Structure formats: structure tokens, C-alpha cells
């Protein structure tokens, strides 16, 4: 029982923060805006968060983070709505939901499909929230004992994991990590006070603004890509039939129970791992459901299990991704890197100390996640009609709106013209990356971790008097590095590679 008592006052504090009128409002704005933009195709969670980031800078840290988290899972949610209704996943994690979800919709069962997706996400989100509350504190306590070598090795592992799992070519992904580290160096060196890579520009001595890099690489570049491929409304198979029978039958519910349990387990596991995330979780859950069923031939023809499993998995993963981010200060994905970036801009150094120094922020955020998930269930189902109408807005009207938001936002952060010019530069660079088929996600992760990594490397080698073996003689540090090496070796093995490539390709083909 002692554990419960320990947990209870914390969650009580969390709910008292999250249930304040102001924070409830920001949570609502977050999930609403997130769902709205998540519904729109061609704008993933990354671009959405990057775009809305500046708005949150004027808020106090807790509210800002609550709103950003709301945007994040709102996006995930909106993505599955369009996957079911129009077979157009708003983001890659809901690609598999298309398969059976849209099929159900075509059979006139859009209502139950949407409802099951909502229920599965809510249950997974609730369990995910409990997991964060349970796993966060012990993990943070452990991390507080970490020295510089452990931190450095942990970051190495996180970065390698993101490269290995996220991109088609490992070599290119690792090169992108180094490029991200390099961009992270720009600015004044904390140890010597020397300004590095500023190219004589006074604006750069404070370092590259995080918003600029994120908005350029994920907002500006994505719009260029969408303009090129031409996101046309006429190709969308819009479901014009009115949605009836929102509620799933008893049989639907019964068939969904086990997939939800399994999906949640898979999602929680992958979500907490650095580098993996909602997309891989959803694919794995779908594959597992196909294996578990007695009628695998029916998959892809409107099986409710094919909606319940992946939907719970991607939501659990989205939720559990906060565990390493908040407890260790190490983001596992590019989206989480944006969250940490937002935290840094608010003047809070991310890391295990956040939980003890700013309990209201940590527990408030966790409580708000649960509230946000509940809001999504209430919000999404009645508003389905609105989301469908939103889908009819042609892209030629949509992208000027996004650009307007971005331009105002990026300028407003520092009221700096230079920031806008740098956004253009990173936007064009991001587009070149797309053309060259190099993924920008590892870059942004490394960009956020760069300064921390250099600092810890310096400190570790100072303690060891310049002897690099310190990373292997300390057991925890050695463990992280060995894990990183194992990951790399696994990915070079042809069998594993093939499987991963298949999953990635399926994802890419269908989101494009």
C-alpha cells in the first residue's frame, strides 16, 4: 500500500494543477487544435508542434507543456479519424488503421470503427499515464546518480537507436546525427566564452534558435514537398454517407478487449524505448493481431481487431514516450525533442531533477494527459462531421494559412528578422534533405542533445584525466554503449534489416 500512498499525493498535486480553469482551457485548446491539424493530411505531429510552438512561449511553463502535450496526442487522434473515414492517415502511426478501419467505414460501420478507435486510445492512454506515474520517479532517482560518463553513453545510445529505427539508410542517419551535433555547437561555448560558428553574425552568438530549425525542417520543407506532389482533394475518397450507429455492438466490444490489452502492452514497451515510437508499435500490434486471430484471411476486410490493436498501441506509445523524456531528459523521438526544446526555451533544464524541483510541472502534465485523453473521446465523436468538412478545404487555401502562422510565430519568438531568414535557410535545407532521402528526425534530436553531450564528454574526460576507457570501465555507462553497439549490429544483419525495411516502406507508401 505504501506505493499507493506515495503515488496518491503526487497525483493529487497533479490533478489540482491540471484541473485549474486556466490549464483545463489550455489542454482543451491543445487537443482541439491538435486534432484539427492532425485531421489535415500532409501535416504530421512534428510540423504541427513546430508551427504552434511559438504560441506557447508566452504561457507559463506548466500551461505551455500541457498545451503542447494536448496538441501532440490530439494529432495522433485526428490522424486515425481521417484514416478511417477517408483512408488518408493524417500521420504515419495511423497507416495501419486505414486497412480495416476504412473497410469498416465502407461497410457502413464508420461509427463503431471510430468509437472503438476512441475507446482503445483512451484505455491505452490511461494505462500509459499510470505507467509514467509509476516508472518515472524510480527512473529519475536512478538517473540522479548518473555521472557525466553515464549521461554521455546514454545519449549515444538514444541517438543510435533513433538512427537505427527511424531511417532507411543507417549510414545517412548517423551522418545526420553528426550534422545535428554540429548545428548544436553554433553559439557561445560555455567553457571558454568563445563564440563558435557565428560567422560574424551577432544573432548567432546565442546559438541557433530551436524553433527556427524545427519550423524550417518540418514546416517549410514539408509544404514545399506537398506543393510539389500536389495534395489534391479530388483524389480523396470522401465518405459522404451520414454516419449512423455510433455505438459498437456488444460483440464488437468483446472482440476488441484482448487486442486493446495486447496493443497497449506493445505500445508501452516500444514507446518507452528511445527511437521506436507510435508507428512501429501500430505496425507490430497489427501483425500480432493477425497472428492471434483464427481468421487471418479476414484482415483488411473490416476486422474490428485491426482497428483496436493498432489504435491502442500507437496511443500507448505516444504516451509512454514521455517516460525517458521527462525522467531522464533524453528524448526518444523528434517529437519529444520538440517537447524538450520547448522546456529549455521556458528556462527549465530538462533532466531527472525536474521531477523533484518542479513537481507541479511534472505531475500536472501527467494528470493533464489523462484529462486530455478523456476530452478527446468526448470531443472527437460528436465533432466527426466538422472534421470531415475540414478535409474538403483544398490545399491551395490551406498552405498560405500554415505559412502565415509560421511566419508570425517564428518572428515573434525573438522579434528577430534573422530568425525568419534562418527559417528560410533551414526550410530549403530540409527540402534538399528530402530530395536526397535523408531523414531530418535524427538531426533535430542531436541538435537538442548536442550541447549537453559536449558538456558531459568534456566533464567525463576531465574526471578520467583524458582516458576514454572511462566509458567502458563504469558498468552503467558500458551497458548503454554495449546496447548501442548491439543495436547497430542487429540492423546490419540482413534478416532484421529486411523486415524493418518492409515495415518502413509500407508506412511511407501510404502516407505519401
Amino acid at each position: 500500500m505504501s506505493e499507493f500512498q506515495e503515488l496518491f499525493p503526487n497525483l493529487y498535486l497533479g490533478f489540482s494543477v491540471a484541473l485549474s480553469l486556466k490549464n483545463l482551457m489550455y489542454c482543451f485548446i491543445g487537443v482541439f487544435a491538435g486534432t484539427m491539424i492532425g485531421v489535415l493530411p500532409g501535416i504530421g505531429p512534428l510540423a504541427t508542434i513546430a508551427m504552434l510552438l511559438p504560441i506557447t512561449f508566452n504561457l507559463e511553463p506548466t500551461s505551455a507543456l500541457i498545451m503542447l502535450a494536448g496538441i501532440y496526442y490530439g494529432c495522433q487522434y485526428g490522424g486515425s479519424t481521417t484514416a478511417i473515414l477517408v483512408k488518408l492517415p493524417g500521420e504515419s502511426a495511423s497507416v495501419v488503421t486505414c486497412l480495416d478501419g476504412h473497410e469498416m467505414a465502407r461497410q457502413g460501420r464508420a461509427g463503431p470503427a471510430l468509437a472503438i478507435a476512441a475507446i482503445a486510445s483512451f484505455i491505452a492512454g490511461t494505462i500509459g499515464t499510470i505507467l509514467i506515474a509509476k516508472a518515472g520517479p524510480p527512473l529519475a532517482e536512478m538517473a540522479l546518480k548518473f555521472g557525466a560518463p553515464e549521461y554521455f553513453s546514454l545519449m549515444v545510445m538514444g541517438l543510435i537507436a533513433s538512427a537505427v529505427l527511424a531511417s532507411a539508410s543507417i549510414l545517412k542517419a548517423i551522418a545526420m546525427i553528426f550534422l545535428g551535433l554540429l548545428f548544436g555547437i553554433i553559439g557561445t561555448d560555455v567553457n571558454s566564452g568563445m563564440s563558435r560558428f557565428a560567422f560574424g553574425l551577432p544573432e548567432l552568438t546565442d546559438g541557433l534558435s530551436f524553433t527556427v530549425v524545427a519550423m524550417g525542417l518540418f514546416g517549410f520543407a514539408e509544404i514545399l514537398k506537398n506543393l510539389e506532389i500536389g495534395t489534391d482533394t479530388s483524389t480523396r475518397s470522401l465518405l459522404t454517407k451520414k454516419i449512423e450507429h455510433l455505438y459498437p455492438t456488444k460483440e464488437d466490444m468483446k472482440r476488441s478487449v484482448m487486442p486493446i490489452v495486447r496493443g497497449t502492452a506493445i505500445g508501452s514497451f516500444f514507446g518507452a524505448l528511445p527511437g521506436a515510437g507510435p508507428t512501429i508499435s501500430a505496425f507490430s500490434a497489427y501483425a500480432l493481431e493477425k497472428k492471434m486471430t483464427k481468421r487471418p484471411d479476414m484482415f483488411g476486410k473490416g476486422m474490428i481487431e485491426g482497428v483496436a490493436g493498432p489504435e491502442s498501441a500507437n496511443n500507448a506509445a505516444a504516451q509512454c514516450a514521455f517516460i525517458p523524456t521527462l525522467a531522464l531528459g533524453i528524448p526518444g523521438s523528434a517529437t519529444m525533442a520538440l517537447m524538450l526544446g520547448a522546456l529549455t526555451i521556458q528556462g527549465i533544464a530538462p533532466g531527472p531533477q525536474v521531477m523533484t524541483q518542479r513537481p507541479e510541472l511534472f505531475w500536472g502534465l501527467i494528470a493533464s494527459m489523462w484529462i486530455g485523453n478523456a476530452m478527446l473521446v468526448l470531443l472527437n465523436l460528436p465533432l466527426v462531421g466538422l472534421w470531415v468538412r475540414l478535409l474538403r478545404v483544398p490545399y491551395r487555401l490551406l498552405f498560405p494559412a500554415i505559412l502565415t502562422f509560421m511566419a508570425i510565430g517564428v518572428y515573434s519568438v525573438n522579434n528577430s528578422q534573422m530568425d525568419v531568414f534562418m527559417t528560410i535557410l533551414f526550410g530549403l535545407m530540409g527540402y534538399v534533405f528530402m530530395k536526397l532521402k535523408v531523414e531530418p528526425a535524427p538531426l533535430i534530436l542531436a541538435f537538442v542533445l548536442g550541447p549537453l553531450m559536449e558538456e558531459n564528454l568534456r566533464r567525463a574526460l576531465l574526471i578520467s584525466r583524458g582516458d576514454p576507457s572511462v566509458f567502458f570501465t563504469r558498468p552503467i555507462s558500458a551497458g548503454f554503449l554495449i546496447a548501442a553497439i548491439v543495436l547497430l549490429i542487429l540492423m546490419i544483419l540482413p534478416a532484421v534489416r529486411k523486415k524493418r525495411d518492409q515495415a518502413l516502406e509500407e508506412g511511407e507508401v501510404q502516407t505519401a
Partner: protein
Amino acid sequence: MKLKISSPEDFWSGVMFIAFGALAIYVSRDYPMGSAMRMGPGYFPTAIGLCLIALGAAVTATGFKLKGEGIGRWPWRSMVVLSVGFATYAWGIDNLGFIPSLAILIGLVSVASRDYRWKEVIVSMAVLIAGSWAVFIYALGLPYPLFWWSY
């Protein structure tokens, strides 16, 4: 044996990494290196530069081995229009005021889509300016003059 670039995207991304690495090393030569025990500000960037060059070389090499799809055409029109639009906004917000800069930005970038229609652009311009005013000036309280005569 004659070498042929079979995957231009790999070849050129390798070249890009090498270029960034070389730039890093070139710029860092002015920064003190220090030793492994007491690293100077030049140590970390130089190390990164070396790694980038090595990785870049490896990626370039795969450009001769792998089969790629090619890079395709560059959408110069959207690239130029979007960049000019953003740059004009950055200049305009300090000189013309919030509303004129947004009008120019929206008018310019709308042209990036090939099927733009002027009537639509005017309407969306009005809607977007009103919305931006409501969100950023009214609700968030950003202190930008609306027109040039308010500077």
C-alpha cells in the same frame, strides 16, 4: 572498370556531408584544440567534422553501388516564392506594419500553388489577416503596429 553514379541521392548526400565536415574543420582551426583531458572549444567540432567526412565518404561510395530513384526536378517556383514571401514578411513587420506585411506574404505565397484563383486569394487574405490579428495581437498581445503610420 568504369564507375557510374547509380544512386544520385546517395552520391550527393555523401558530398553534402563531406562539405559540412570540411567546413566544420576549416572554421574550427581558429579555435584552441586543448587536449582530451582539457578540451578546448575546437576539439568537439573538429572531431565531428572528421566523422562527417568519413561517413560522407562512405555514403558517397554507396552512390556507385545502390540503385536510386534519382533526385528529380527542383520546384524552383515554390522555393523562390516561399522564400521571398518569408523574407518580405521579416522586412515588412519592422517597416510596413502587421497587416500590410501579412497581405504581401499571403498574396505572394498563394502563387506557389499552380491552381490559385485571385478571388479566392483575396478572400483568404482577409480571413487570415483577421484571424491572425485575433490570435496574435488581440489574444496574445504581440506589440506590432498594424500599419506603417503607427511606427
